[in-house]
């Protein structure tokens, strides 16, 4: 978001206003430089990485500071939790401060499961190995020359990646070492440890949410993450991870009924969260169990209140698991919302059909792209059967119905 960057530029410009000339060479160094951030190529907003390289690409380079990323959880909350952990792990590696809130697991549980960073790897992004076609023409005799017009076209690149590297890679099979983890400053919010007193004032927000918001505001004020804070010390980013917001454990009945009693609780909280983030150097990732929320209008409202919104749809337990089209992937990823920051039109992802897979060293989001099916057996069988059934009724096949051969 541009607001923090601009104000810092202004304040530093005032400091150097005793220069003789009013002319100043525009340089990059005027922007605040915080490790683990970079300005966006499109609009110059300060970005941080989500920890998943392909997700960064999808969101237009990264998450803008001061925005909220909403992740609609998959059915068993395995992959959405993974992305949340990637986001926090990236914060640990970049030495950002963390704020973890949960009602189900203790924040320490989540922090202990952070994936181990691969720090010494080379920056070369290996191109995805194209699946070899089973009937690849080997000799010139059978070389297909029909599609000569297309021989100079580039192959479809399924993996999403930008040219420059931003963020780190992580090894999911290993946990992050304790000393790296403890080097990062982390604020924890575990709901059962916060006694929520029922406030006499009638507010649309639940006590659990207002306690969370209050705790967040305290951290932001105390640790000086506000944009207006004095420039005396070096600035840092606060990464906020809120797990499974809106679930029943937060005391919210959003998931239970079509017309929940606390229907405005989560939306009110999100308004407050957004106001808080917009005026501070912080960025939040919120996961919501949207598959439990029956009221679609409410879910739409929640999506609207976040800047970015993606939904994960795991194949686990669905009939899609057996579908050969999806055999390489673990689930589908839907982009529900892209940020409109200080502009009317936003950059849209160039591809709508996206799938994700979790490999040991990488969580990758790829374009769902179907390679040409050149094998002899797959489609031809059905074609043959079709011809066979058509032959029974057709006149031209009547004479040779016993001996099945090609008819036109």
């Amino acid at each position: 978001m541009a607001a923090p960057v601009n104000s810092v530029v202004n304040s530093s410009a005032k400091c150097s206003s005793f220069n003789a000339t009013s002319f100043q060479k525009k340089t990059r160094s005027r922007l605040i430089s915080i490790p683990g951030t970079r300005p966006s190529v499109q609009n110059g907003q300060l970005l941080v990485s989500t920890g998943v390289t392909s997700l960064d690409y999808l969101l237009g380079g990264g998450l803008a500071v001061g925005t909220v990323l909403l992740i609609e959880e998959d059915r068993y909350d395995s992959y959405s939790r993974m992305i949340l952990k990637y986001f926090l792990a990236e914060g640990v590696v970049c030495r950002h401060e963390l704020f973890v809130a949960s009602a189900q697991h203790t924040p320490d549980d989540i922090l202990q499961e952070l994936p181990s960073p691969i720090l010494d790897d080379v920056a070369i992004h290996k191109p995805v190995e194209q699946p070899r076609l089973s009937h690849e023409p080997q000799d010139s005799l059978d070389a297909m020359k029909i599609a000569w017009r297309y021989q100079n076209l580039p192959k479809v690149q399924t993996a999403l990646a930008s040219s420059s590297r931003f963020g780190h890679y992580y090894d999911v099979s290993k946990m992050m070492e304790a000393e790296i983890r403890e080097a990062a400053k982390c604020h924890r919010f575990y709901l059962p440890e916060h006694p929520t007193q029922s406030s006499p004032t009638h507010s649309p927000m639940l006590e659990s949410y207002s306690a969370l918001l209050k705790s967040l505001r305290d951290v932001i004020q105390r640790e000086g993450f506000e944009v207006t804070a004095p420039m005396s010390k070096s600035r840092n980013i606060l990464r906020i991870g809120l797990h499974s917001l809106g679930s029943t454990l937060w005391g919210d009945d959003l998931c239970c009924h079509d017309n929940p009693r606390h229907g405005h609780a989560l939306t009110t909280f999100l308004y407050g969260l957004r106001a808080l983030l917009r005026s501070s150097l912080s960025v939040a990732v919120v996961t919501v169990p949207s598959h439990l929320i029956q009221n679609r209008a409410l879910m739409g409202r929640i999506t609207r209140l976040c800047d970015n919104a993606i939904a994960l749809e795991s194949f686990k337990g669905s009939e899609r698991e057996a579908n050969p089209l999806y055999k390489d992937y673990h689930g589908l990823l839907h982009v529900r919302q892209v940020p409109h920051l200080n502009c009317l039109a936003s950059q849209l992802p160039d591809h709508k059909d996206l799938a994700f897979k979790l490999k040991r060293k990488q969580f990758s989001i790829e374009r769902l792209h179907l390679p040409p099916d050149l094998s002899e057996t797959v489609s031809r069988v059905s074609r043959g059967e079709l011809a066979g059934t058509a032959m029974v009724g057709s006149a031209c096949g009547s004479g040779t119905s016993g001996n099945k051969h090609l008819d036109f």
Partner: protein
Amino acid sequence: MLSELLQGTDTGGFLIVQDNISHSGRPLLKSFISAALNRDEDVHVLAFEASEEELKDGLQGLPCQRLHIHNAYIDPLGWTAHPAFTVQQFCFEELTQLAKQTSQPKPATLVIDSLSWILRHLNPPHVCKTLQQLRKGGAVRAIIGLLHADMHQRGTVGSICHLATSVIAVSPGMKADEAVAKTTKRAKSGKVTQDEEIFRINEDLTVVVLNKTSHPGPKQTDQEEPEMDPTANLTFNLRLSDTEREAKEKLALPFVFSKEKKMALLQSGPGSGRILYEPDANDDYDQEDPDDDLDV
């Protein structure tokens, strides 16, 4: 997977037996009770839906001093002066108190018959919160609950099952004494395993897993059709003779760049322009090879 779960759910486990009107899950719940009693564990049963006699039926041969039935069947809402257990007592403090009454220091297993009854009288967030606190509290080793899925809104069932480590959904099988169990188990690492089994419950409440229902895999077409050459009886020529092939290969296709043409385009001949450049001191020369990402 069903027999695995019967052998003992791990500590902090929360198992839900989900049934509906067409098939009751109570026999399976009783199997879980008997399996826990056979392991010498204390079992606390919150009985809302069945009388004590009905629950104890079939458990006679077992060490019943370990079985503690909290009878909420007679007076669930506390209308009489001395109710045994009421639905209002379903909260973390009360249940921890109950579980600690037993002499054995080992944490007990809590069986809830049924969660549906509790959900009718308490609001779902409170029930979920209590269940989660019990799991983390340590006074209870495992929770096994019966849930009638067709009694509640889908979101409520989903929210309760979201907390569970294992969900067994039972449905009627092909024969009268058989039933199908769809099991979903969530490991702590986030790994999800699913299984579908046919089972039968004997008189002594032991569960016999009959067979695994085969997954609807790719169906094999049973009749192997004799391979035939579709090009056998053609009215036209599909094959090429050697001379024909030679002629075909000679043909230059449009848009195909031959090697000679490519080289001619790339290498500038005499008379064409060239770029001469002398490096300057102020040049912003990039040390990095711009093409290092290319595979050349």
